[in-house]
């Protein structure tokens, strides 16, 4: 008998998953203790207990007798909310206990010499143990964040998340945000067209196309290298000074659109070019061999395929553009960020700026999902079985 068949005859004995199960139980317990402590701090904050009062109570050794009635007097909604928070870490014990049970089962199977069942139980046990440890870390980080916000008499919370101020000013900031939306919506349309022109100009074939290729290359090099804030500044302040008709009398919003189109047009042109070059040359050959000329080939065969491929990186650049609309405050446009800054300095509080931050994040999420869906639909159409 060779070594190899001997190995098959004596399968390896699975290593016990008990240690990792116990680790999961331990981590779950520690997480629970920490979260409950944070929840207690939160209860104190809700009950209006300041750090100073806590220090006083500690000095007089009346911490519990002082604090418990205060927390007990919290309204019912606070109790409900806190109650739910208290339950969250307990949920970790479900997989942790399952894991421990599976590990015990594995031990039993091993005694009965049932290796296969033992392996299955061991795998089950270590899987569930890691599941509970993973979520324990998730919950720990979440509650650490919460603690960070409420620590020091809600120092962070009141600086960045002052709810009453946020609610009061949300309308104003939201309205100013429409300016950002207008700028990027218009700019995106311009960019899609302008960048395609630049990309095609960079790829135009033949000797006669050389000056056009050079121009397009020079443009992309220049405007990709220029920081967009500088382009906005120069165009927004510079063009009105020149007094050139039409170009000199635009509103700051249109200067911003113009500047952002120039900057992002250079980026997006490169994205287009990468997409076009990623289409296999045989597609160009096949189209040209049917008698289509260069531009017909681009229009009907190459660009439609390239666009499908560049949608994800295109979204990336558009998200970048959307965020860069916050730079237009350098030329005095009242966009969301500028409005929020004015409100922040009037109220000595940054929470209004937090609103802008949240708005920017919120608008990108549906776009990402929409792109995912579009790509999925297209893939289903052209590749799905019929």
């Amino acid at each position: 008998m060779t070594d190899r068949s001997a190995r098959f005859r004596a399968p390896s004995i699975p290593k016990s998953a008990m240690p990792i199960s116990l680790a999961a139980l331990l981590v779950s317990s520690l997480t629970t203790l920490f979260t409950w402590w944070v929840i207690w701090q939160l209860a104190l904050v809700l009950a209006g207990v300041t750090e100073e009062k806590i220090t006083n109570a500690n000095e007089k050794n009346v911490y519990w007798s002082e604090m418990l009635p205060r927390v007990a007097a919290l309204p019912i909604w606070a109790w409900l909310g806190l109650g739910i928070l208290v339950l969250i870490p307990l949920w970790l014990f479900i997989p942790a206990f399952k894991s421990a049970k599976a590990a015990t089962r594995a031990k039993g199977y091993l005694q009965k010499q049932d290796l296969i069942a033992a392996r299955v139980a061991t795998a089950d046990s270590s899987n569930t143990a890691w599941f509970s440890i993973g979520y324990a870390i998730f919950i720990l980080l979440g509650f650490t964040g919460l603690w960070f916000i409420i620590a020091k008499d809600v120092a962070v919370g009141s600086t960045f998340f002052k709810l009453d101020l946020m609610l009061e000013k949300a309308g104003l900031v939201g309205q100013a945000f429409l300016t950002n939306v207008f700028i990027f919506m218009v700019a995106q349309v311009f960019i899609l067209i302008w960048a395609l022109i630049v990309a095609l100009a960079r790829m135009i074939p033949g000797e006669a196309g050389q000056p056009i290729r050079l121009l397009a290359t020079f443009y992309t090099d220049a405007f990709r290298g220029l920081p967009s804030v500088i382009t906005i500044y120069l165009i927004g302040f510079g063009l009105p000074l020149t007094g050139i008709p039409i170009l000199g009398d635009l509103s700051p919003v249109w200067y911003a659109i113009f500047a952002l189109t120039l900057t992002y047009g250079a980026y997006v042109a490169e994205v287009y070019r990468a997409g076009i070059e990623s289409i296999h040359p045989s597609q160009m050959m096949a189209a040209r061999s049917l008698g289509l000329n260069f531009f017909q080939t681009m229009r009907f065969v190459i660009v439609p395929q390239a666009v499908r491929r560049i949608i994800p990186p295109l979204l990336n650049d558009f998200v970048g553009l959307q965020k860069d609309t916050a730079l237009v405050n350098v030329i005095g446009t009242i966009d969301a960020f500028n409005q929020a800054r004015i409100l922040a300095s009037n109220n000595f509080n940054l929470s209004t700026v937090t609103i802008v931050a949240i708005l920017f994040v919120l608008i990108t999420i549906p776009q990402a999902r929409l792109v995912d869906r579009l790509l999925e639909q297209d893939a289903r159409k052209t590749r799905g079985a019929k």
Partner: protein
Amino acid sequence: MSFLEMRGVVKRFGSLEVLRGLNLSIEEHDVVCLIGASGCGKSTLLRCINGLEPISGGEIQILGDRVSGAGVDVNRLRRDVGIVFQSFNLFPHMSVLENICLAPRQVLALSKAEAEARAYELLKRVQLEQKAKAYPDQLSGGQQQRVAIARALAMQPMLMLLDEITSALDPELVAEVLDLVRELASEGMTMLLATHEMGFAKEVSSKVCFLYQGVVHEEGTPEQIFSAPKKPRTQAFLKSIIEAGRL
């Protein structure tokens, strides 16, 4: 005057000389098979004819018109010379119908209805009418190649160039494509084929050309080339083909 006349055609890729003064003439309704080892220039020869590769020397004429070199309207030339590739090269983002209709509509300026009528006729011919709305990736290799042939035929070319059109197919799909070529041959379509299917070449062609070192080394009727090749290189090539069980 021959239908297609190639005189002293040279094609270089950098320092590599693929075609070295090749002469070839084809009459109308001829079916000419190009055989030879890989890399002997069969595909390059086909691509030179419809201008996909500019030639470095010599001249190509179709019906007495020079179709190589400067001043030739390649887009016009390609209307009359169809080519089908080894790798099908269908447009993956278009349905079968759109693949076939694209060039007739854009190049010949046919109306949508005219182009589609022509496309359905061709699809019927290649027995794929029911696949008109399907996309290339949903078809088998043999079906894709038949669509590619239909796409080339939709331009109603005078000459068809077939570049190893069965080489990328699974063995059981080869027959359906060859049947179609056989049918085209019997209808009198002038064709130039690069092929490794020797049995098929023997059966369908009116002339066989053995390419070696960038020239037509030996040419003749299929009987003559396959049964009694005169030159030692041709004999050696055919011997290796027979030993591989391909003839």
